[in-house]
Structure formats: structure tokens, C-alpha cells
């Protein structure tokens, strides 16, 4: 028996109300507002065309944010996928205490981005940190925290995020990886395929849709990077780790430039929707081919 129209209405209503009221409606109203001079406490609202977007795109700080997040995404997402896949590959066959291994390896993801920033802030710090502790034992002088170094701040921010997210990728990949029949691995092993070939020829083809879905989530996560940098670097030094989300937040709530905040936030959304189109195309092409 099929669901009736009424059934469907009942089933979809709660999620529809929640998502419309608290996600789609604000997003769309925000989009309309960015084409006007609207501010929450202003009284005069006029149509302003693309002025808000033009102002954001002209802003050097936003340019730096876009550059940073591009580097961040291009470096972090493949690393998270690669490390996550490697760990999942190691855990794919039952070993003693696999359940415990899985949960212990997931622990970094349980740390909130903000707590993660606090933790690494201190781990990099000279009086309290692990780096200078090791260097001290080696008889080397202390090094200043890399988060204060314009050249190192972004790589370090990426590394810290990869540390937190790669375990979650493992967690998401493991069900898919363990559902690959054992015979296929053994065939490949018997044929003398080295591990890299086994991964490329056995794992990747069957994991493709899952990997694409995880990549989508990771790209969105990366493009929205906010609390991961808020405390670790605060966007600094200078603009070396500022991200579009941090920029939007500071525009809207820090300097009360609401239109710039809303417009730049919509540029983030546009980036994610762009990635979404690529994702849906990629999931599709596979199946028609």
C-alpha cells in the first residue's frame, strides 16, 4: 500500500515547519535584504542592487578570507579523506577490541571546535606546551607559538582541523568499507596486488558514492570554518587566517555592518551550493554511465 497524500502531509509537516522557519526563510529573507539597504534597526529601506556584494568583494579583508578558505579547503579536505580512509582501511577487518579502537579514534571529533582551539592554543604555548617540552628535553631553545607566525598560522590551523575531522571521516567510511565482501580483498591479495592497488581497485569503486557524500560534507564544513579559528588565531596574525565566516560574523555583529555581514554570508552559501551542484552531477554521471 502506498502512502496517501494526507499521510505524506503529516509525515513531512514537522520537518518542513522546522526547516522553513529556522533555515530556509531566514536564508531567503537574508538574501532579499542583501539587495537593499536593510539593517535590523534602520528605518529606511531602499533597493540597492548589488552594492552590498560589490562592497564586500572590494574589501581586501574578504579577499584574504576567500584566499585562506580556498587554501584551507584544497589542503584540508583531501588530507581528511586520505587519513580517514587510511585509518578505516586499517580497521576494516575485525581485530581484538575493534569497537574500542573505533571509539578511541573518534575522540578527537568529540572535542568541540572551540575547545580544540583552546587546547591547541596552550599546547603551542611556550610555558605550558608539548612542543617546547620536547624541545627543552632535546636541549633546544623554545620556539614561539606557530599561531603567531603569519607564514605558519594557516598551515597550523589546517593541521589542527585535520586532527579533529579525520577521525570522523574514518567513522563514516568504516561501515561502507567493511561491507565490501572479504573475497574481493582476498582475490586481490592472491593476485599479488600491493596494498595501494587493493585500495584503488577494490575499495574506491564501491566507496565512490560514500566518498562523494563525505567530501560534500567536508567541503561545507571547511567553507564555514568559524569556531576553529576564533580562539586559535582569531583570524590573525593580520588577515592570515581570517575566514569568510569569521568575516561575516565580525561585520554583522562586531562593527554593525549588517548588510556586509549578510552579503558575505550569502557568498559562503553560494560556494556551498556550487559544490552541491558538482556533487549531484558527480553522483549522477556514475549511474548513467
Amino acid at each position, binding site marked *: *500500500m*502506498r*502512502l496517501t497524500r494526507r499521510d*505524506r502531509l*503529516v*509525515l*513531512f509537516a514537522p520537518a518542513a515547519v*522546522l*526547516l522553513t*522557519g*529556522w*533555515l530556509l526563510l*531566514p*536564508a531567503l529573507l*537574508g538574501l532579499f535584504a542583501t539587495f537593499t539597504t536593510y539593517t*535590523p534597526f534602520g528605518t529606511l529601506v531602499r533597493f540597492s542592487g548589488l552594492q552590498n556584494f560589490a562592497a564586500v568583494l572590494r574589501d581586501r579583508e574578504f579577499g584574504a578570507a576567500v584566499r585562506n578558505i580556498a587554501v584551507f579547503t584544497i589542503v584540508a579536505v583531501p588530507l581528511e579523506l586520505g587519513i580517514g580512509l587510511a*585509518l578505516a582501511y*586499517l580497521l576494516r577487518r575485525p*581485530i581484538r577490541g575493534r569497537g574500542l579502537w*573505533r571509539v578511541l*579514534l573518534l*575522540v*578527537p*571529533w*568529540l*572535542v*568541540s571546535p*572551540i*575547545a580544540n582551539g*583552546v587546547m591547541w592554543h*596552550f*599546547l603551542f604555548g611556550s*610555558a*605550558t606546551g*608539548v612542543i*617546547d617540552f620536547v624541545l*627543552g*628535553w632535546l636541549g633546544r631553545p*623554545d620556539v614561539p607559538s606557530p599561531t603567531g607566525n603569519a607564514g605558519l598560522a594557516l598551515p597550523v590551523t589546517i593541521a589542527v582541523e585535520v586532527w579533529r575531522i579525520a577521525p570522523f571521516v574514518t567513522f*563514516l567510511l568504516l561501515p561502507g568499507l567493511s561491507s565490501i565482501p572479504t573475497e574481493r580483498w582476498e582475490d586481490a591479495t592472491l593476485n599479488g596486488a600491493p596494498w595501494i592497488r587493493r585500495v584503488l581497485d577494490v575499495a574506491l569503486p564501491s566507496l565512490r558514492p560514500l566518498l562523494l*557524500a563525505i567530501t560534500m560534507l567536508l*567541503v*561545507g*564544513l571547511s567553507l*564555514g570554518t*568559524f*569556531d576553529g579559528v576564533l*580562539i586559535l588565531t582569531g583570524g590573525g596574525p593580520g588577515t592570515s587566517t581570517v575566514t*569568510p*565566516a569569521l568575516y*561575516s*560574523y565580525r561585520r554583522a555583529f562586531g562593527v554593525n555592518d549588517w548588510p556586509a555581514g*549578510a552579503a558575505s*554570508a550569502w557568498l*559562503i*552559501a553560494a560556494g556551498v551550493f556550487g*559544490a*552541491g551542484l558538482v*556533487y549531484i552531477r558527480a553522483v549522477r554521471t556514475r*549511474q548513467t554511465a
Partner: protein
Amino acid sequence: MSGLQGQRRRDSATRAILLTLALAVALLPLVWTALAAVGLRANNNTTPPSWVGPPTLDHFRDVGIAEPSFWQELATSTLSAACASALTVAASLPAAYGLARSHFRGDRLLTQGFLVLASLPAMAYVIPLSDLMRRAQLVDSFVGVVLTDSAVTAPLAIYVLHGAVSQLSSECEEAAWLDGAGLFRVISQIVVPLAAPSIVATAIIVFVLDWNLLLVPLVLTAGEIKTIPLAMSDFFTFERELEWPTAAAALMISLVPVAVLATVFHGVLDRFALNVPRVD
């Protein structure tokens, strides 16, 4: 066959070594933090660096001194994440079921749309949302935070639960429909019991996401409702940098509840999976 067995033995030895190494990288920073929280921290000013002892639980008390409402914030965090997780699952499960069991043009595309929506950073819509919530008198309210948390996590929950329901055979449901059972009975007596592990796993993951969410409470509250991530960001933004052991203790308090939750339910968490539907 001995070649295969030998290969296997070598493989498992390599595997054990690599996994131990990975575990060390994953846990070392947290062990360092846990040690600091109980008063065992490094002193890098001596040569060679030394340890400051003895072990103490005083730093956990210091958290309450540095942030007098910390324990109340812990309660707010727990309660809001629990309510948001429950609401997310309650709203997502029917939608996921409806999506899995009805066929219309573009139904799979819609499902994939939820994954894209799940990837959309909250920053994309919280700025106008904060304005709407102010007008709806929901700023700085528990209800406002819970509803927004739920909206943030619902797309992911719908996607995951859709995957879980799709994998269930619909035979039992068909039989129940034929017996004249209504929609509510089919869901509560057949779908929920069969999908229970996936539902619990989704609720736990959503709880963790809500527990760790900073942006929503940051933008939608003004001091009345405060969660742990918000308190942690305040520790540093008000120009008062906390002592490392106190910060470490606060960090441990924020991590331990979710770590315990994940450990207790590790068997169920296996069922959290992204099942990617075919798009046609």
C-alpha cells in the same frame, strides 16, 4: 594458501603498529590536557623541563570560580542538546520515512538536496535568523536555541534516517497496512523498533553536534542562556586569559560527557551510516 596466511600475519602486525601510532597522535594532545587538568603539568622554564605536581582536583573547582555560572551552563548545554537532539529525530524520522516510502519525480534528488543542506554552514543563515528571532521575541530563550539547533542538524538526520529506513524491508509494513493499521501505528510499532539502532545512533551524533555548536547560541543569546562552548569562547574574548590548568579542566568537563556517551553506545554507533541513494 600459506602465502596468503603469511601475508595476513605480516599485515596484522603492520596494522597493529600503525593503529597504535594513529591512536597516539589522536590521544596525546588530550592526555596532555587531562594531565594538566589534574594538576600534572609541564614546566618548560627549567632545564630540562620538569613536571609540576602533585595531582589535585582543585582546578575543577577553579572553573567554578573563574566562571561562577559554569555548572549552570553545563546543565543548560546538556538540556538544550538533549531537547534539540530529540526534536531533530522526532521531526526527521517521519520525513525520512515519507521520503523512503513514496516515489515521485525527483525524490532522490530531494534526498541528495538534504545532504547539500546538511553541508550548508550555519553562518549562511544565522545573521538574518538572529534578526527574525529578535522580532519573534525568541532571542536569549531556551526554546529559540533548541529550535535553531534542531534546524541546523535536521538535514543530516533526515539523510541518515532515510538511508536506514530505505534498507528496511517493507514487508512487515505492507502486512500491517493490510491489517488496517494507521500511519501512526505503522511507524511506532514497526518502523521505530526495526530502525531503533540507527535512530539511537543518529540521536547520539546529533547530540554531540548540538553539544559542540557555538555559532547558534553565540548569535541568538545575550547572556541569559549560555552553553559550554559559549562560556569557553568568553574565557578568552573578555581579555582574561585563563590559567592553563583551569582551561584544561573546563575542556575535560566539556569532553567527558560526550566521550562517555560514545563509549557506552559504541556498538550502536556502528549503525550511523550515510547511505547514498542512487539519483536517476
